[in-house]
């Protein structure tokens, strides 16, 4: 019985954390889910566009060995389970526009340091203007504000 109670509490924890940090998530507004695949030695996609203030759910799965998923300077550092063993999930809400580098944080082989990508966060007005100008080259990585709403690394489903 005690075990059941503990398990129930543990299962409820992520939901509690989410509701505590992300009131927007309770509004029922649809949250974009971004799927990232990790494999030696690259992520796909390597470039992801978000809008400032947009709350997204990032789900990372591996096609081979275990990888890491870290948003540099962002406090996100997940272990991505091996192929077929689930996926790592985090909810990310950038509060300022800019670039956030993400990378593999778990040694995965000879080309490990090549495993990098970028989250490009546009201001809402930039998002509109981007339909005219698509190349965004200003590098302001690591200096932007954001909030990680929840983080979990799951095995065989969340």
């Amino acid at each position, binding site marked *: 019985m005690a075990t059941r109670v503990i398990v129930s509490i543990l299962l409820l924890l992520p939901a509690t954390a989410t509701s505590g940090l992300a009131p927007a998530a309770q509004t029922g507004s649809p949250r974009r889910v971004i799927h990232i695949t990790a494999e030696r030695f*690259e992520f796909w996609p390597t470039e992801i566009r978000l809008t400032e203030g947009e709350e997204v759910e990032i789900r990372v799965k591996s096609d081979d060995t275990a990888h890491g998923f870290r948003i540099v300077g962002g406090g996100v550092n997940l272990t991505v389970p091996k*192929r*077929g063993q689930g996926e790592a999930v985090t909810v990310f809400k950038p509060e300022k526009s800019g670039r956030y580098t993400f990378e593999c944080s778990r040694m995965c082989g000879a080309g490990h340091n090549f495993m990098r990508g970028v989250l490009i966060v546009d201001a809402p007005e930039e998002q509109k203007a981007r339909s005219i100008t698509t190349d965004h080259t200003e590098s302001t990585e690591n200096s932007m504000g954001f909030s990680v709403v929840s983080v979990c690394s799951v095995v065989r489903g969340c």
Partner: protein
Amino acid sequence: MTFEWPKRAGRSSALLTLAFAILVSTSSVAAQQPAGVEPGFPSTGPISGYMDFHFNKADGEAGTLDFHRFVLLFTHSFSPRVRFVSELELEHAFVEGLEEAGELELEQAYLDFLLSRRFNLRAGMLLVPMGIINERHEPPVFNGVERPFVDTVIIPTTWFEAGAGVHGDLGRGFRYRAYALAPLNALEFTAEKGIRGGRQKGSQANVRNVAFAGRLEYRSSRHLTIGASAWGGDSSFSVPRLDTSVRIGEVDARYRTDRLELRAQAAQVGIDDAARLNDAMARLTGVSPNIARSLRGFYGEAAYRIWNAGAPRDLVGFVRYENFDTQYRMPVGFVPLKEFDREAWVFGITYFPDPDIAVKADYVRLQNQSGLVPTRQIVNVGLGWWF
């Protein structure tokens, strides 16, 4: 690494010096970055590595058991932007002086200065960015107990050399590497194994001349990656009268879906002044090595995940055709040795009890164009793992 300052090689040496100067100056810039923002730095390890344990049996020969590779990787991150990676390999389990049984090799040992997405610096012992396998050689990554012949004879994997260079992601699916490295030593080339013996392996490497290597990759979708690599460098530093430049061009492609994986690669090596190289080596050893002026190889591989329920229910079957010729084009006055114009069919399976453990078995039929040297049939069984 031994630096010499010859009269006619000033340009290459100056370039290498410039590369190191840029590196030193940029390292101070990197050190000024806000390294403290990310918790967990500096950090070391953990140790990781991979192993390759093989059984090989050719027809008419006794089978052999070989602990082919024992590789350990050590890493240290000074900060999020400055990182050290090394790879130390023991080949064939045993090393003794003056014997060719085993090798202890420092395959990688470099510092990475991660400056931006598009431009990063790297210096130390580097893997030459050439082909599919050289930078992706962990046992679970490729099919077959042994690496493809083309990635052994034409592209001499594991090919590592001392040097420095840049790498980055250009966006829109493009990635690049460009390095200045110690060149090949042409006096170690052979008719059978091509340029393989010419690797200096960063061991007191002569950099009278510097070689340049580069690779550009394009990933158009989750499924398709296309790559092209090039190498160029004067390789006759041991015999300055010669002008033996080596040029390598390579293209490759990988296509992958949930079950199907296709790979293709082609490479060609050009050796300038090969006739005079042969003459010079004949004077040194008394035998002409019959080095070609052009070597060529290509292969195509199709693999299908027969059992796709996730490890331990994960089984891949594959077939690979290879064609490789280390006597493809000969200098005037030299006749090709047809036994080194070879082709191979490889059929095999790879079973994954864990995504990081590969149990492999294959059958190889290795033919050549000579009427004297018979076709070889080889059975290989291997166990490889990554941790």
